[in-house]
């Protein structure tokens, strides 16, 4: 009798534990889900890619315009310290392509500023290291963040070979003009990592990324898997390079030199 009761309690306990764990285990085995829902006019692609014509956008002023377009639509704060946040910014040749240095570059290429942003790699190290799947790669190749799942461990920042990620060390809203917020896109909270999202929220509405729209044709955006797409055409006709090819990440951002 005593034994029966004991085994019953044991069984009941096990069953209760299983019931508690099962839904979590099912959830855990699933990947992260994109918070952006595609609309009826949404743009679709197998692998989104960007080609930047550095012959056309090559001054700091050019890139400032693109940065403003990007940062205002995504509510990116302008923090004047080295704990700053950048989705899109400019850098000279030697900072953009430190592994492809050449002491006698022509003055034109050497003098240009280059636009930097997340490369949306085919093999993103940031996704590989994230311990919570807060950063993940969508089926269309875009690497995005779930700001509500991120624990702020910054492992992705150590892993990114391109320095594309920023961390909200403090409260980002302190550095935003709250009267000029884009209310269609969330601001972030402190303690999470963020970066360029290839404007997934705009693609879902059938719009081109903000920087592409502001670039006046100097940046081409499209499906790399479609051989008739404009990006493929531009890539066929021009010499392009990518940042740090030796890292094996296969960036989706190409630069026409």
């Amino acid at each position, binding site marked *: 009798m005593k034994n029966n009761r004991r085994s019953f309690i044991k069984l009941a306990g096990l069953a209760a534990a299983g019931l508690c764990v099962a839904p979590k285990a099912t*959830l*855990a085995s699933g990947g992260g889900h994109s918070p952006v829902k595609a609309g009826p006019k949404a743009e679709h692609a197998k692998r989104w890619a960007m080609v930047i014509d550095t012959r056309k956008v090559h001054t700091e002023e050019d890139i400032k315009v693109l940065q403003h377009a990007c940062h205002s639509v995504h509510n990116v704060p302008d923090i004047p310290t080295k704990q700053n946040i950048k989705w899109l910014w400019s850098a000279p040749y030697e900072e953009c392509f430190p592994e492809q240095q050449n002491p006698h570059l022509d003055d034109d290429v050497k003098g240009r500023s280059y636009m930097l942003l997340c490369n949306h790699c085919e093999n993103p190290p940031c996704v590989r290291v994230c*311990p919570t799947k807060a950063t993940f790669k969508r089926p269309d190749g875009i690497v995005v963040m779930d700001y509500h799942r991120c624990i702020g461990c910054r492992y992705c920042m150590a892993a990114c070979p391109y320095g594309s990620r920023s961390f909200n060390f403090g409260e980002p809203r302190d550095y935003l003009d709250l009267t000029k917020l884009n209310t269609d896109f969330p601001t972030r909270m402190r303690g*999470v990592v963020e970066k360029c999202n290839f404007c997934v929220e705009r693609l879902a509405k059938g719009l081109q990324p903000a920087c592409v729209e502001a670039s006046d044709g100097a940046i081409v955006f499209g499906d790399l898997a479609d051989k008739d797409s404009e990006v493929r055409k531009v890539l066929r006709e021009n010499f392009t390079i990518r940042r740090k090819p030796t890292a094996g*990440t296969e960036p989706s951002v190409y630069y026409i030199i």
Partner: protein
Amino acid sequence: MLERALKGSPRYWAWIGFLLVIICAGALVWINQLTVGLKITGMSRDVSWGFYIAQFTYLVGLAASGVMIVLPYYFHHYKPNKHMVIFGEFMAIAACIMCMLFIVVDLGQPQRMLNVMFHPTPNSILFWDMTVLIGYLSLNLLCGWVCLEHDRIRLPHPKWIKPFIIISIVWAFSIHTVTAFLYQGLPGRHYWLTAILAARFLASAFCSGPAILLLVLKVTEKVTTFRMPKRAVATLTKIIAYAMAVNMFFFLLEVFTSFYSNLPGHMHPLVYLFSGVHGHHELVAWMWTFIAFAVISLAMLIPPKLRDNQKLLPWALVILVIATWIDKGLGLLIGGFNPTPFDTITPYWPSGKELMVSAMVYAIGALIVTVLFKIATDVKQELGNSQALPCGCSSEDDDCDCGTAEEAEAEEAPAADAAEATA
């Protein structure tokens, strides 16, 4: 057994009180960090990990180091270590807890930290690091507590604990390997991107960890009746000397590979650390201190005459700990992030608040060590194991050839003075 931690001398309570003051002061700063974010630290967009993660890395070494006492005893039946084992295990418990706390204080959103368990991600090394640290903490709690409890009630250790002890010995190597994997698998960080990093981590752990343990045990000898067997000390010191030599050998392998290959990515971090680039020389003095101290500690530990000199030993160990700490607790992190992915330099130095929070974690660790060592030494005293004899030997020394008690006391006096000066 915990009640033994509640009965202590005024000196014991003063020490506990001192630690609690530091913990409270650090906790206030930590609350400030929780309210305003990690902007109170010296970290930046380019150097996104700093002092916290560096201390975590260093302390994983301390956690793993207890195995250098446990392994000879269980795998080689090295008897002199018998009454030292518990201290290795208890030190590992404190070190594991400090490691976890350093991760927690480094998180931007600590209240979400359980996401690592709710959304387990086996491709992330951080997930595995959490797993091995929790595992190692549990194993040491289990083995340490069960063995001490059985000692206390004068029973032999139960047979079922043996497999757990063997697992914990193997596990010790895994915690530092996985911690090295955190770093060495990142494609853009050349200073970390080296297959020897895990081996170097283990080598530096097995010298710095036992060194810290020996120093703490030397203090323990001053404040309790516990006395380490001479042979156990001599063996541990030998292990420290070998491990430090291997550690520096691995470092030289790094230097050779970087400079003979002439690969810029591999050379730049070392050049930045040891001679400075782009007008930045922040760490040059530190890194050469590391080299100088490493050489001095080896010079004091390799010749048997100097190594077995118990008056010199604490100094050699302190110098060794400083050297390895600069290497692993400072240079490793800053050299990994500099040069940045843009081949530029962003200097980093911990802020005062960052150091206060770190002091809190270290004080919590010291508190745990104090309480656990108090319990362990109380039990040893009750059983008369490994106790100080009037001649200065340990009751476990079977080759004690000391003369009469008076002579030994006369000899003991200067040694005590030297040790007090160290403390």
